[in-house]
């Protein structure tokens, strides 16, 4: 017994000291980051997130194959905390130690044994997953590509060792008479029966040796975990607690000002916490459209590089973490730590953030890095042209701002000028739907529909400017704020109850980001308005009876959770909706978001996201690919052509489908003219 106590105490002291030192160091590194305001607000909601995300393992369970074994392992670890306490009791206290208040109920013995088995099976499953999706063979298609796979195998092995030593010493106990649980502890007793022939003496030695090995394995695991990516078992709950709610996606933060993050400590401490929390699971990478197109960006590798950057500048960060803010000699991140192509490849689609089980906020980090590039004037020429055009004329097309409402001239009526007459709905049309010829046709169809349905709506005419969603996402924060000021002044000069937009990107910033600048009106997307008008019968339709699929725009479906309204529209039109595998909040980006539409699209090694999406739809046997975003209309019409499927799959906007379904008598002559001019 003395030997047990001394060895276990020494092992434990060493383990705790090593792990504690490491955690303290990490805490200092993280504290060196810029302030992240609002991260502790609304504690109750954060507590709720802990329950759903951490204990409930919500995101992990969305992928049952790896999610179920992970959840079982997680719950198993919690249950097996009891065995750790018991092991310590046995080692340090008495051979018949019982947890006070719980004792040795048969149920506990059973559950402990059950989870030992479950965790061992989970470890086996994880091994199979890693072998099947081995990066050495599957290269970029593997979600583990670029992860520290060696470390992962060691982790799995260590978990197995902890489990095996645990059940081993319990089995030996069963033979020495020290095991307090009855036959319900089936696994321990089963193994005990196998060890029984060795005799009591051997089993007694085995009990002590395996118990000490178990304590050693637990401590070894603790030290190992705190020094590896497996740290997430401690940090995930903390990171989730500080993550943005209700979702990790949301209004972009400006924690380092308009100049963005030039060096590692310009990123907020929440970002730094993100990087040490990442488990390298690669779920983000598997969902990233840039990565699948063969671009250099992988959200996982970005996070890993930033973590490497953190550790490489540890000296500076430690001094800053201790409060010495003048200690600053960390290298400039772009291009030293992160290649510029990496940050410019991002479409800000948010798939990575949506997938990440520990709520890492990749998009904010990317935009922070982009801001630093914009501040220094580093960007590609076509983006520079677009930004300059927006600064001068308020639109990315570089057309005169006075031409913004020219598309209305071909309507048979003049939409109300909301600056002159009060209206119920203010239509925020956006650049693409105003200036692009093909998309302006769609705007005319929508205008005709609303006019015939008697909707009281108006426009800002030339007072409208680019809403700035993508301007903000390419990192031109100053220009974004200038656009907001302009649009807010235009709103102030108009009378309306509700805004609706054509463009999901404008919708996103108006709805989520303008309120910080004083906007207090509800914002709708036109799909929501159409759903309402169809439900109320304001637009009478006859069933179309088509088989269609629908593409959720990232900024509607994922960023804003509006997945139902467009589907309601399709149902009202009597269409049979066949879903693509990636739909709703898990939609796949067209590749145009986040300002990518202004940048040259050099093909990567893989297929363009929009083309891969068209193939996904082709497999469904539908003949209409329905979109609800001007940029999607352009991107997918092109992709349908380049893939050669345009004769079998027609890309069509939601509004065109509504127009097609309208009963003949509900069309006024004027609006019918507008519909007739729409592309077939």
């Amino acid at each position: 017994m003395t030997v047990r106590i001394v060895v276990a105490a020494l092992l434990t002291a060493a383990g705790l000291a090593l792990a504690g030192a490491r955690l303290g160091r990490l805490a200092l590194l993280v504290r060196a980051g810029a302030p992240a305001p609002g991260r502790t607000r609304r504690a109750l909601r954060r507590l709720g997130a802990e329950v759903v995300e951490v204990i409930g393992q919500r995101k992990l369970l969305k992928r049952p194959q790896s999610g179920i074994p992970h959840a079982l392992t997680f719950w198993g670890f919690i249950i097996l905390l009891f065995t750790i306490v018991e092991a310590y009791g046995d080692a340090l206290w008495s051979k018949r130690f019982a947890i006070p208040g719980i004792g040795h109920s048969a149920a506990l013995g059973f559950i402990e044994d059950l989870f030992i088995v479950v965790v061992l099976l989970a470890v086996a499953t994880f091994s199979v997953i890693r072998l099947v999706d081995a990066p050495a063979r599957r290269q970029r298609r593997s979600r583990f590509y670029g992860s520290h796979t060696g470390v992962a195998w060691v982790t799995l092995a260590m978990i197995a060792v902890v489990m095996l030593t645990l059940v081993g010493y319990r089995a030996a106990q069963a033979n020495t008479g020290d095991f307090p649980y009855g036959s319900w502890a089936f696994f321990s007793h089963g193994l005990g029966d196998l060890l029984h022939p060795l005799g009591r003496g051997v089993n007694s030695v085995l009990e002590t040796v395996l118990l000490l090995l178990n304590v050693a394995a637990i401590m070894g695991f603790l030290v190992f975990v705190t020094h590896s990516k497996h740290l997430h078992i401690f940090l995930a709950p903390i990171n989730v607690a500080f993550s943005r709610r209700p979702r990790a996606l949301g209004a972009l933060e400006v924690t380092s000002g308009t100049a963005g993050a030039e060096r590692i400590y310009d990123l907020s401490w929440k970002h730094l916490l993100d990087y040490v929390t990442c488990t390298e699971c690669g779920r983000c990478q598997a969902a990233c459209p840039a990565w699948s197109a063969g671009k250099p960006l992988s959200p996982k590798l970005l996070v890993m590089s930033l973590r490497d950057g953190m550790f490489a500048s540890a000296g500076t960060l430690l001094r800053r973490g201790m409060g010495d803010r003048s200690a600053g000699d960390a290298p400039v991140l772009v291009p030293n730590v992160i290649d510029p192509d990496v940050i410019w490849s991002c479409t800000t689609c948010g798939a990575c953030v949506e997938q990440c089980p520990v709520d890492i906020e990749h998009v904010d980090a990317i935009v922070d890095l982009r801001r630093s590039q914009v501040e220094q004037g580093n960007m590609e020429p076509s983006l520079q042209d677009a930004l300059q055009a927006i600064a001068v004329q308020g639109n990315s097309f570089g057309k005169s701002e006075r031409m913004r409402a020219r598309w209305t001239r071909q309507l048979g009526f003049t939409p109300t000028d909301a600056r002159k007459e009060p209206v119920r709905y203010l239509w925020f049309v956006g650049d693409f739907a105003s200036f692009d010829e093909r998309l302006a046709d769609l705007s005319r169809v929508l205008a005709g529909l609303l006019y015939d349905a008697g909707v009281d709506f108006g426009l800002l005419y030339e007072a409208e400017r680019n809403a700035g969603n993508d301007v903000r996402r390419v990192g031109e924060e100053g220009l974004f704020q200038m656009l907001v000021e302009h649009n807010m002044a235009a709103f102030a000069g108009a009378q309306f109850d509700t805004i609706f937009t054509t463009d999901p990107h404008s919708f996103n910033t108006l709805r989520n980001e303008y309120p910080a600048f004083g906007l207090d009106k509800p914002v709708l997307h036109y799909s929501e308005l159409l759903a309402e008008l169809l439900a109320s019968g304001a637009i009478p339709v006859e069933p179309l009876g088509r088989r269609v699929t629908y593409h959720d725009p990232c900024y509607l479906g994922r960023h804003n959770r509006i997945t139902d309204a467009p589907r309601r529209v399709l149902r009202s039109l009597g269409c049979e909706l066949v879903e693509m595998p990636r739909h709703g909040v898990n939609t796949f980006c067209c590749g145009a978001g986040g300002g990518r539409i202004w940048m040259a699209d050099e093909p990567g090694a893989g297929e363009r996201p929009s083309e891969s999406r068209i193939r996904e739809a082709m497999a469904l046997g539908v003949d209409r690919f329905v979109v609800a975003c001007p940029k999607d209309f352009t991107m997918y019409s092109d992709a349908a052509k380049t893939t050669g499927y345009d004769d079998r799959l027609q890309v069509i906007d939601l509004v065109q489908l509504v127009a097609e379904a309208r009963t003949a008598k509900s069309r006024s002559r004027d609006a019918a003219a507008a519909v007739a001019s729409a592309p077939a």
Partner: protein
Amino acid sequence: MRIVVAVKQIPDLVEELELTADGTDVDRELLKMVVNEFDDQALEEGLCLKEAGDAELVVVALDEPDVDQTLHAALAKGADAAIKLTGALTGWIDSHRRAALLASWLSGQSFDLVLTGVQAADDLDGQLPGLLGAQLEVPHISVAVRVEAEDGMAKVWQELAGGTVVVDEVRLPAVIGVQAARQAPRYVSISRIRQAQQSGGITEVEVQAAELGTEQFALRRLVAPEAAGHAEMLAGGAGEVADRIVELLRAKGLVRS
């Protein structure tokens, strides 16, 4: 070394230009005015020169609509000072008046290099650099695509017709008309421009009307270009289109037989 870059505002050409009722000027009422793109090139070359060596860079412009924006942007990009010449400046200022106004200020200044755009939408002849050189009685070189200065001399890369580049040497001070800078004009973020705006930085200098000299000429009338015939799109199969092309070429006498 002291470099002066003269910039000016011109109407943004994406706007539809309309003439005033009396037909002597474009209607400036609603026009967006932006910096002449060649002046932007001159500024970029000036900034490159400044970064390459020890130089002070001053931008100067006449008080024309939206010029503050242009001057603030220049300051944000790295100009050391911005001068706005004020006075009785309305309507279109032709290159003679412009040269006289700039020279009246420049002649009281020390300078080694004056850079300005080789031309502008309202000075397609590229008169300004030459006129300015004459007024200041210093040499002038135009169509420069690169300028390097050392020891009171400047080397000027000049692009001639047919893509020939000659390298001239000129004694300073001199006036250079810049066609293109050695690199694309840099982007300056709006937040930097706003910072420049907040810290002031534009010095106003009044120039006297008396210094303008006598009117060299009077503008009688501007005429909007008449719309030329529209392109005709040939539709149909390849064979039909080919036949139609041959027919058209024959009709114009460009192919025989």
